[in-house]
Protein backbone atom coordinates (compact mmCIF):
# COMPACT_ATOMS: atom_id res chain seq x y z
CA UNK A 1 0.00 0.00 0.00
CA UNK A 2 2.21 2.79 -1.25
CA UNK A 3 -0.61 5.29 -1.08
CA UNK A 4 0.67 7.33 -4.01
CA UNK A 5 -2.61 9.10 -4.66
CA UNK A 6 -1.33 10.92 -7.75
CA UNK A 7 -0.54 7.71 -9.68
CA UNK A 8 -3.45 7.29 -12.09
CA UNK A 9 -4.21 3.60 -12.49
CA UNK A 10 -7.81 3.86 -13.74
CA UNK A 11 -8.43 5.78 -16.98
CA UNK A 12 -11.42 7.96 -17.83
CA UNK A 13 -13.25 4.94 -19.32
CA UNK A 14 -12.95 3.05 -16.04
CA UNK A 15 -10.35 0.65 -17.44
CA UNK A 16 -7.26 -0.38 -15.55
CA UNK A 17 -3.63 -0.14 -16.68
CA UNK A 18 -3.71 -3.62 -18.24
CA UNK A 19 -7.04 -2.94 -19.99
CA UNK A 20 -9.19 -4.90 -17.55
CA UNK A 21 -12.50 -3.72 -16.14
CA UNK A 22 -12.66 -3.42 -12.32
CA UNK A 23 -14.22 -6.88 -11.87
CA UNK A 24 -12.01 -8.76 -14.34
CA UNK A 25 -9.56 -11.50 -13.38
CA UNK A 26 -6.20 -12.01 -15.08
CA UNK A 27 -5.88 -15.01 -17.47
CA UNK A 28 -5.40 -18.32 -15.64
CA UNK A 29 -3.91 -21.64 -16.71
CA UNK A 30 -4.03 -24.71 -14.46
CA UNK A 31 -2.22 -27.97 -15.08
CA UNK A 32 -2.06 -31.06 -12.86
CA UNK A 33 0.46 -33.88 -12.59
CA UNK A 34 3.45 -31.69 -13.42
CA UNK A 35 5.76 -33.26 -10.81
CA UNK A 36 5.87 -36.99 -11.63
CA UNK A 37 7.50 -38.09 -8.36
CA UNK A 38 4.95 -36.27 -6.19
CA UNK A 39 1.66 -37.84 -5.09
CA UNK A 40 -0.14 -34.81 -6.50
CA UNK A 41 0.99 -31.61 -8.15
CA UNK A 42 -0.25 -28.50 -9.88
CA UNK A 43 1.18 -25.70 -11.96
CA UNK A 44 -0.86 -22.53 -11.96
CA UNK A 45 -0.18 -19.50 -14.10
CA UNK A 46 -2.25 -16.51 -13.00
CA UNK A 47 -1.42 -13.44 -15.04
CA UNK A 48 2.36 -13.30 -14.73
CA UNK A 49 2.33 -15.20 -11.45
CA UNK A 50 3.43 -18.79 -11.66
CA UNK A 51 3.35 -21.37 -8.89
CA UNK A 52 4.25 -25.04 -8.78
CA UNK A 53 2.83 -27.05 -5.89
CA UNK A 54 3.77 -30.62 -4.97
CA UNK A 55 1.93 -32.73 -2.40
CA UNK A 56 3.45 -35.76 -0.68
CA UNK A 57 1.66 -38.06 1.71
CA UNK A 58 -0.09 -38.91 3.91
CA UNK A 59 3.15 -40.17 5.38
CA UNK A 60 4.60 -40.80 8.81
CA UNK A 61 5.03 -37.49 10.61
CA UNK A 62 8.61 -36.71 11.62
CA UNK A 63 9.74 -35.54 14.09
CA UNK A 64 7.34 -37.47 16.31
CA UNK A 65 6.56 -34.44 18.45
CA UNK A 66 4.54 -32.90 15.59
CA UNK A 67 2.22 -35.92 15.40
CA UNK A 68 -1.40 -35.44 16.43
CA UNK A 69 -2.97 -38.56 17.92
CA UNK A 70 -6.39 -38.02 16.33
CA UNK A 71 -5.59 -36.42 12.98
CA UNK A 72 -3.01 -35.67 10.33
CA UNK A 73 -0.99 -32.48 10.18
CA UNK A 74 -0.48 -30.42 7.06
CA UNK A 75 3.03 -29.10 6.61
CA UNK A 76 2.95 -26.19 4.17
CA UNK A 77 6.14 -24.64 2.89
CA UNK A 78 5.63 -21.51 0.78
CA UNK A 79 8.76 -20.28 -0.91
CA UNK A 80 9.52 -17.67 -3.54
CA UNK A 81 12.35 -18.57 -5.91
CA UNK A 82 15.24 -16.08 -5.80
CA UNK A 83 14.60 -15.26 -9.47
CA UNK A 84 10.83 -14.83 -9.09
CA UNK A 85 10.96 -11.03 -8.83
CA UNK A 86 13.10 -8.29 -10.32
CA UNK A 87 14.88 -7.84 -6.98
CA UNK A 88 16.63 -11.07 -6.06
CA UNK A 89 15.07 -12.73 -3.03
CA UNK A 90 17.43 -14.20 -0.48
CA UNK A 91 16.83 -17.99 -0.51
CA UNK A 92 15.25 -19.62 2.50
CA UNK A 93 12.44 -18.81 4.87
CA UNK A 94 11.68 -15.31 6.03
CA UNK A 95 8.95 -13.66 8.06
CA UNK A 96 6.63 -13.26 5.07
CA UNK A 97 6.96 -16.83 3.82
CA UNK A 98 6.34 -18.19 7.33
CA UNK A 99 3.19 -16.11 7.62
CA UNK A 100 1.87 -17.23 4.23
CA UNK A 101 2.71 -20.87 5.00
CA UNK A 102 0.74 -20.56 8.25
CA UNK A 103 -2.38 -18.98 6.75
CA UNK A 104 -2.32 -21.44 3.83
CA UNK A 105 -2.04 -24.34 6.27
CA UNK A 106 -4.98 -23.03 8.32
CA UNK A 107 -7.12 -22.64 5.19
CA UNK A 108 -6.32 -26.14 3.94
CA UNK A 109 -6.87 -27.72 7.36
CA UNK A 110 -10.49 -26.59 7.21
CA UNK A 111 -11.21 -28.65 4.07
CA UNK A 112 -8.99 -31.74 4.30
CA UNK A 113 -10.50 -34.70 6.20
CA UNK A 114 -7.52 -34.93 8.54
CA UNK A 115 -9.17 -37.32 11.01
CA UNK A 116 -8.87 -40.12 8.44
CA UNK A 117 -5.08 -40.15 8.79
CA UNK A 118 -4.19 -39.88 12.48
CA UNK A 119 -0.53 -39.30 13.39
CA UNK A 120 0.49 -38.74 9.78
CA UNK A 121 1.63 -35.76 7.79
CA UNK A 122 0.69 -34.28 4.43
CA UNK A 123 3.51 -32.20 2.98
CA UNK A 124 2.57 -29.33 0.66
CA UNK A 125 5.42 -27.46 -1.04
CA UNK A 126 4.50 -24.23 -2.80
CA UNK A 127 7.19 -22.77 -5.00
CA UNK A 128 6.59 -19.39 -6.60
CA UNK A 129 8.48 -19.28 -9.88
CA UNK A 130 7.31 -15.87 -11.05
CA UNK A 131 5.71 -13.27 -8.80
CA UNK A 132 3.70 -10.23 -9.71
CA UNK A 133 0.99 -9.73 -7.08
CA UNK A 134 -1.31 -12.08 -5.20
CA UNK A 135 1.09 -15.00 -4.88
CA UNK A 136 -0.52 -16.16 -1.64
CA UNK A 137 -3.82 -16.53 -3.52
CA UNK A 138 -2.14 -18.44 -6.36
CA UNK A 139 -0.29 -20.66 -3.88
CA UNK A 140 -3.40 -21.53 -1.88
CA UNK A 141 -5.56 -22.18 -4.95
CA UNK A 142 -2.86 -24.32 -6.59
CA UNK A 143 -2.32 -26.20 -3.30
CA UNK A 144 -5.97 -27.23 -3.15
CA UNK A 145 -5.81 -28.51 -6.75
CA UNK A 146 -2.62 -30.45 -5.96
CA UNK A 147 -4.23 -31.98 -2.85
CA UNK A 148 -7.21 -33.12 -4.94
CA UNK A 149 -4.79 -34.49 -7.54
CA UNK A 150 -3.05 -36.49 -4.79
CA UNK A 151 -6.35 -38.17 -3.87
CA UNK A 152 -6.48 -36.56 -0.43
CA UNK A 153 -10.11 -36.53 0.78
CA UNK A 154 -11.47 -32.98 1.05
CA UNK A 155 -14.88 -31.48 1.63
CA UNK A 156 -14.31 -28.82 -1.02
CA UNK A 157 -11.67 -27.04 -3.07
CA UNK A 158 -10.35 -23.72 -1.81
CA UNK A 159 -10.29 -20.77 -4.20
CA UNK A 160 -8.41 -17.68 -3.17
CA UNK A 161 -8.80 -14.29 -4.85
CA UNK A 162 -7.83 -10.76 -3.79
CA UNK A 163 -9.61 -7.50 -4.44
CA UNK A 164 -8.52 -4.03 -3.44
CA UNK A 165 -8.93 -0.30 -3.84
CA UNK A 166 -7.10 1.78 -6.43
CA UNK A 167 -7.72 5.50 -6.94
CA UNK A 168 -10.86 5.11 -4.78
CA UNK A 169 -12.21 2.42 -7.10
CA UNK A 170 -12.65 -1.16 -5.89
CA UNK A 171 -10.99 -3.58 -8.32
CA UNK A 172 -10.64 -7.34 -8.45
CA UNK A 173 -7.39 -9.32 -8.73
CA UNK A 174 -4.77 -6.61 -8.28
CA UNK A 175 -1.69 -6.53 -10.47
CA UNK A 176 1.76 -5.39 -9.30
CA UNK A 177 1.26 -1.64 -9.69
CA UNK A 178 -2.20 -1.74 -8.13
CA UNK A 179 -0.86 -3.82 -5.26
CA UNK A 180 2.13 -1.52 -4.67
CA UNK A 181 0.45 1.85 -5.11
CA UNK A 182 -3.17 1.02 -4.30
CA UNK A 183 -4.98 1.91 -1.10
CA UNK A 184 -6.21 -1.49 0.11
CA UNK A 185 -5.92 -5.23 -0.50
CA UNK A 186 -8.40 -7.91 0.59
CA UNK A 187 -7.34 -11.52 -0.13
CA UNK A 188 -9.98 -14.14 0.62
CA UNK A 189 -10.16 -17.94 0.54
CA UNK A 190 -13.60 -19.24 -0.39
CA UNK A 191 -15.17 -22.69 -0.58
CA UNK A 192 -17.10 -22.36 -3.84
CA UNK A 193 -19.69 -25.05 -3.21
CA UNK A 194 -20.77 -23.80 0.20
CA UNK A 195 -19.68 -20.16 0.07
CA UNK A 196 -17.81 -20.55 3.36
CA UNK A 197 -14.80 -18.39 4.09
CA UNK A 198 -11.58 -20.08 5.22
CA UNK A 199 -9.08 -17.28 4.78
CA UNK A 200 -9.35 -13.51 5.07
CA UNK A 201 -6.70 -10.83 5.36
CA UNK A 202 -6.92 -7.09 4.83
CA UNK A 203 -4.27 -4.47 4.28
CA UNK A 204 -5.26 -0.79 4.06
CA UNK A 205 -8.60 0.87 4.68
CA UNK A 206 -11.96 0.08 3.11
CA UNK A 207 -15.33 1.61 3.93
CA UNK A 208 -18.16 -0.88 4.66
CA UNK A 209 -19.56 -0.30 1.13
CA UNK A 210 -16.14 -0.81 -0.46
CA UNK A 211 -15.59 -3.92 1.65
CA UNK A 212 -18.93 -5.31 0.46
CA UNK A 213 -18.01 -4.56 -3.16
CA UNK A 214 -14.57 -6.20 -2.79
CA UNK A 215 -16.22 -9.21 -1.13
CA UNK A 216 -18.69 -9.56 -4.02
CA UNK A 217 -15.90 -9.28 -6.59
CA UNK A 218 -13.94 -12.00 -4.77
CA UNK A 219 -16.89 -14.38 -4.58
CA UNK A 220 -17.73 -13.84 -8.25
CA UNK A 221 -14.11 -14.34 -9.31
CA UNK A 222 -13.78 -17.42 -7.08
CA UNK A 223 -16.66 -19.09 -8.92
CA UNK A 224 -14.96 -18.39 -12.26
CA UNK A 225 -11.64 -19.77 -11.04
CA UNK A 226 -13.38 -22.81 -9.53
CA UNK A 227 -14.74 -23.73 -12.97
CA UNK A 228 -11.17 -23.72 -14.31
CA UNK A 229 -9.95 -25.83 -11.39
CA UNK A 230 -12.68 -28.40 -12.01
CA UNK A 231 -11.84 -28.45 -15.72
CA UNK A 232 -8.15 -28.95 -14.91
CA UNK A 233 -8.86 -31.81 -12.50
CA UNK A 234 -11.21 -33.50 -14.95
CA UNK A 235 -8.98 -32.75 -17.93
CA UNK A 236 -5.99 -34.02 -15.94
CA UNK A 237 -7.51 -37.45 -16.39
CA UNK A 238 -6.49 -37.21 -20.08
CA UNK A 239 -9.95 -37.86 -21.39
Amino acid at each position, binding site marked *: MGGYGDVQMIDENGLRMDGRKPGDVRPITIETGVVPVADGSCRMVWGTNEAIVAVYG*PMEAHPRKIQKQDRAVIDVAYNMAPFSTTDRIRPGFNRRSREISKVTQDALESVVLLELYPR*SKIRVSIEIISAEAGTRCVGLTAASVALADA*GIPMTDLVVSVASGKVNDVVVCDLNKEEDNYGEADLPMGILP*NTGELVFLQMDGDLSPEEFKQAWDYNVEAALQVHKLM*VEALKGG*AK*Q
Partner: protein
Amino acid sequence: MNSRPVGQFDNMSNESNADGPQDSRRSLIVVPGEDLGSSEGIEAGHGVLVVGDRVKSTKQGRMNRKGNTISVSPLHTRYMPRPGDLVIGHIEGCTNNIWFVDIGAPFNSILPMSLGPAKVEFGGTRKVLDIGDSILCRVQEVEETHQSVVTMKGMGLRKIRSGALDELDPHLLGHLIGKGGSFLRAMKMETDCRIVVTDNGRLWIDGDLENILEVRKRIEKISSEAMIAGVGA
Protein backbone atom coordinates in the same frame (compact mmCIF):
# COMPACT_ATOMS: atom_id res chain seq x y z
CA MET B 1 -35.73 -39.33 -4.39
CA ASN B 2 -34.32 -36.95 -6.96
CA SER B 3 -35.12 -38.35 -10.39
CA ARG B 4 -32.34 -36.43 -12.13
CA PRO B 5 -29.54 -38.73 -13.35
CA VAL B 6 -26.85 -38.57 -10.72
CA GLY B 7 -24.04 -38.07 -13.24
CA GLN B 8 -25.52 -34.86 -14.63
CA PHE B 9 -25.16 -31.77 -12.48
CA ASP B 10 -25.68 -28.12 -12.93
CA ASN B 11 -22.05 -27.36 -12.27
CA MET B 12 -20.65 -29.91 -14.72
CA SER B 13 -19.34 -29.26 -18.16
CA ASN B 14 -21.84 -30.09 -20.87
CA GLU B 15 -20.16 -28.40 -23.82
CA SER B 16 -21.54 -29.50 -27.16
CA ASN B 17 -18.07 -29.39 -28.72
CA ALA B 18 -16.78 -32.28 -26.59
CA ASP B 19 -15.63 -35.36 -28.48
CA GLY B 20 -18.68 -37.56 -28.84
CA PRO B 21 -18.85 -40.53 -26.48
CA GLN B 22 -15.97 -39.23 -24.41
CA ASP B 23 -18.30 -36.54 -23.11
CA SER B 24 -20.48 -39.08 -21.33
CA ARG B 25 -17.41 -40.61 -19.68
CA ARG B 26 -16.20 -37.15 -18.75
CA SER B 27 -19.33 -36.49 -16.75
CA LEU B 28 -18.48 -39.41 -14.47
CA ILE B 29 -15.26 -37.84 -13.20
CA VAL B 30 -15.94 -35.82 -10.07
CA VAL B 31 -13.82 -33.49 -7.94
CA PRO B 32 -13.85 -32.80 -4.18
CA GLY B 33 -16.91 -30.92 -3.01
CA GLU B 34 -18.97 -31.77 -6.08
CA ASP B 35 -22.65 -32.33 -5.49
CA LEU B 36 -23.66 -35.91 -6.37
CA GLY B 37 -27.39 -35.47 -5.82
CA SER B 38 -29.88 -35.97 -3.05
CA SER B 39 -28.99 -38.26 -0.15
CA GLU B 40 -32.51 -39.57 0.21
CA GLY B 41 -32.47 -43.37 -0.04
CA ILE B 42 -28.77 -43.30 -0.89
CA GLU B 43 -25.97 -45.03 0.96
CA ALA B 44 -22.61 -43.29 0.98
CA GLY B 45 -19.74 -45.48 -0.19
CA HIS B 46 -16.03 -44.78 -0.46
CA GLY B 47 -15.00 -41.21 -1.25
CA VAL B 48 -18.36 -39.55 -0.62
CA LEU B 49 -19.86 -37.64 2.28
CA VAL B 50 -23.46 -36.89 3.20
CA VAL B 51 -23.81 -33.19 4.03
CA GLY B 52 -27.36 -32.32 5.06
CA ASP B 53 -29.59 -33.84 2.40
CA ARG B 54 -26.95 -33.89 -0.33
CA VAL B 55 -24.24 -36.37 -1.25
CA LYS B 56 -20.85 -34.79 -1.94
CA SER B 57 -17.64 -36.18 -3.35
CA THR B 58 -14.51 -35.94 -1.22
CA LYS B 59 -12.06 -37.16 -3.86
CA GLN B 60 -11.12 -36.68 -7.47
CA GLY B 61 -12.20 -39.83 -9.23
CA ARG B 62 -14.82 -41.76 -11.09
CA MET B 63 -18.29 -41.89 -9.64
CA ASN B 64 -19.92 -45.30 -9.39
CA ARG B 65 -23.50 -46.11 -8.56
CA LYS B 66 -24.36 -49.68 -7.61
CA GLY B 67 -27.94 -50.09 -6.43
CA ASN B 68 -28.50 -47.26 -4.01
CA THR B 69 -24.82 -46.90 -3.07
CA ILE B 70 -22.80 -44.05 -4.52
CA SER B 71 -19.03 -44.18 -4.32
CA VAL B 72 -16.04 -42.50 -5.92
CA SER B 73 -13.12 -44.59 -7.21
CA PRO B 74 -10.17 -42.24 -6.84
CA LEU B 75 -7.68 -41.67 -9.66
CA HIS B 76 -4.83 -41.62 -7.14
CA THR B 77 -4.74 -43.51 -3.87
CA ARG B 78 -2.40 -44.34 -1.09
CA TYR B 79 -2.37 -47.87 0.27
CA MET B 80 -4.37 -48.36 3.46
CA PRO B 81 -3.40 -51.60 5.23
CA ARG B 82 -5.95 -54.24 6.14
CA PRO B 83 -5.35 -57.39 8.18
CA GLY B 84 -4.39 -60.30 5.96
CA ASP B 85 -2.93 -58.19 3.14
CA LEU B 86 0.16 -59.57 1.43
CA VAL B 87 2.65 -56.71 1.13
CA ILE B 88 6.22 -55.99 0.13
CA GLY B 89 7.96 -53.81 2.72
CA HIS B 90 11.31 -52.12 3.02
CA ILE B 91 13.15 -52.20 6.35
CA GLU B 92 13.55 -48.58 7.44
CA GLY B 93 14.96 -49.01 10.91
CA CYS B 94 15.27 -51.36 13.83
CA THR B 95 15.67 -51.54 17.56
CA ASN B 96 16.90 -54.48 19.64
CA ASN B 97 13.69 -56.41 19.11
CA ILE B 98 11.60 -54.64 16.43
CA TRP B 99 12.02 -53.79 12.76
CA PHE B 100 10.24 -50.73 11.29
CA VAL B 101 8.87 -51.54 7.86
CA ASP B 102 7.75 -49.13 5.14
CA ILE B 103 4.76 -50.74 3.44
CA GLY B 104 3.71 -47.61 1.51
CA ALA B 105 0.99 -46.72 4.01
CA PRO B 106 0.60 -43.37 5.80
CA PHE B 107 2.29 -44.89 8.82
CA ASN B 108 5.18 -47.35 9.16
CA SER B 109 4.52 -50.92 10.24
CA ILE B 110 6.40 -52.82 12.87
CA LEU B 111 7.74 -56.34 12.59
CA PRO B 112 8.36 -57.72 16.08
CA MET B 113 11.26 -60.09 16.64
CA SER B 114 8.80 -62.86 17.49
CA LEU B 115 7.21 -62.60 14.03
CA GLY B 116 10.52 -62.32 12.15
CA PRO B 117 11.87 -64.73 9.54
CA ALA B 118 14.17 -66.61 11.90
CA LYS B 119 15.05 -66.98 15.52
CA VAL B 120 16.77 -63.78 16.55
CA GLU B 121 18.68 -63.04 19.71
CA PHE B 122 17.80 -59.84 21.53
CA GLY B 123 19.90 -57.12 19.90
CA GLY B 124 20.64 -59.17 16.80
CA THR B 125 17.89 -57.84 14.55
CA ARG B 126 20.26 -56.27 12.02
CA LYS B 127 22.03 -59.58 11.46
CA VAL B 128 18.80 -61.04 10.06
CA LEU B 129 17.16 -58.07 8.32
CA ASP B 130 19.19 -54.92 7.80
CA ILE B 131 18.04 -51.43 6.86
CA GLY B 132 17.28 -51.29 3.14
CA ASP B 133 16.29 -54.97 2.84
CA SER B 134 12.98 -55.80 1.18
CA ILE B 135 10.63 -58.41 2.57
CA LEU B 136 7.50 -60.21 1.54
CA CYS B 137 5.21 -60.16 4.56
CA ARG B 138 1.61 -60.16 5.62
CA VAL B 139 -0.32 -57.54 7.62
CA GLN B 140 -1.33 -59.18 10.89
CA GLU B 141 -3.07 -56.35 12.71
CA VAL B 142 -4.14 -52.76 12.07
CA GLU B 143 -4.98 -50.40 14.90
CA GLU B 144 -7.42 -47.51 14.70
CA THR B 145 -4.49 -45.17 14.39
CA HIS B 146 -3.33 -46.99 11.23
CA GLN B 147 -0.33 -48.40 13.05
CA SER B 148 0.06 -51.94 11.76
CA VAL B 149 1.95 -55.08 12.64
CA VAL B 150 3.33 -57.33 9.91
CA THR B 151 4.39 -60.92 10.15
CA MET B 152 6.82 -63.13 8.27
CA LYS B 153 5.41 -66.33 9.75
CA GLY B 154 3.58 -67.99 6.91
CA MET B 155 4.08 -69.86 3.70
CA GLY B 156 6.14 -67.98 1.09
CA LEU B 157 6.89 -65.01 3.34
CA ARG B 158 10.59 -64.26 3.07
CA LYS B 159 13.35 -61.78 2.53
CA ILE B 160 13.64 -60.77 -1.13
CA ARG B 161 17.12 -61.59 -2.42
CA SER B 162 16.73 -61.56 -6.21
CA GLY B 163 14.66 -60.12 -9.04
CA ALA B 164 13.28 -56.60 -9.38
CA LEU B 165 10.63 -54.56 -7.61
CA ASP B 166 8.08 -52.33 -9.30
CA GLU B 167 5.12 -50.29 -8.13
CA LEU B 168 1.58 -49.65 -9.31
CA ASP B 169 -1.23 -47.64 -7.73
CA PRO B 170 -3.11 -50.10 -5.46
CA HIS B 171 -6.47 -49.42 -7.09
CA LEU B 172 -5.08 -50.50 -10.48
CA LEU B 173 -4.08 -53.98 -9.36
CA GLY B 174 -7.35 -55.36 -10.69
CA HIS B 175 -6.32 -54.37 -14.21
CA LEU B 176 -3.01 -56.17 -13.83
CA ILE B 177 -4.48 -59.32 -12.34
CA GLY B 178 -7.62 -59.60 -14.48
CA LYS B 179 -10.70 -61.68 -13.83
CA GLY B 180 -9.75 -64.74 -11.82
CA GLY B 181 -6.08 -63.87 -12.30
CA SER B 182 -6.28 -64.36 -16.07
CA PHE B 183 -4.17 -61.33 -17.13
CA LEU B 184 -1.47 -62.07 -14.60
CA ARG B 185 -1.36 -65.76 -15.54
CA ALA B 186 -1.03 -64.85 -19.21
CA MET B 187 1.75 -62.39 -18.45
CA LYS B 188 3.63 -65.00 -16.43
CA MET B 189 3.33 -67.51 -19.28
CA GLU B 190 4.31 -65.03 -22.01
CA THR B 191 7.30 -63.57 -20.21
CA ASP B 192 8.42 -66.67 -18.30
CA CYS B 193 8.81 -64.59 -15.14
CA ARG B 194 7.91 -65.22 -11.52
CA ILE B 195 5.65 -62.39 -10.45
CA VAL B 196 4.24 -61.70 -7.00
CA VAL B 197 1.61 -58.96 -6.87
CA THR B 198 1.01 -57.58 -3.40
CA ASP B 199 -1.88 -55.59 -2.00
CA ASN B 200 0.17 -52.42 -1.43
CA GLY B 201 0.82 -52.12 -5.15
CA ARG B 202 4.38 -53.40 -5.06
CA LEU B 203 5.42 -56.23 -7.35
CA TRP B 204 8.27 -58.66 -7.27
CA ILE B 205 9.44 -59.84 -10.70
CA ASP B 206 12.10 -62.50 -11.17
CA GLY B 207 13.42 -63.98 -14.40
CA ASP B 208 15.76 -63.09 -17.28
CA LEU B 209 16.63 -59.42 -17.56
CA GLU B 210 14.85 -58.99 -20.92
CA ASN B 211 11.75 -60.62 -19.54
CA ILE B 212 11.80 -58.45 -16.42
CA LEU B 213 12.06 -55.37 -18.63
CA GLU B 214 9.11 -56.61 -20.70
CA VAL B 215 6.97 -57.04 -17.57
CA ARG B 216 7.94 -53.59 -16.32
CA LYS B 217 7.02 -52.12 -19.69
CA ARG B 218 3.58 -53.68 -19.50
CA ILE B 219 3.07 -52.43 -15.95
CA GLU B 220 4.07 -48.94 -17.00
CA LYS B 221 1.52 -49.15 -19.81
CA ILE B 222 -1.24 -50.10 -17.37
CA SER B 223 -0.23 -47.19 -15.16
CA SER B 224 -0.23 -44.61 -17.95
CA GLU B 225 -3.49 -45.86 -19.45
CA ALA B 226 -5.08 -45.73 -16.01
CA MET B 227 -5.31 -41.98 -16.17
CA ILE B 228 -7.89 -42.35 -18.94
CA ALA B 229 -11.31 -41.78 -17.48
CA GLY B 230 -13.14 -44.95 -16.68
CA VAL B 231 -10.10 -47.15 -16.21
CA GLY B 232 -9.50 -46.16 -12.61
CA ALA B 233 -12.52 -48.06 -11.35
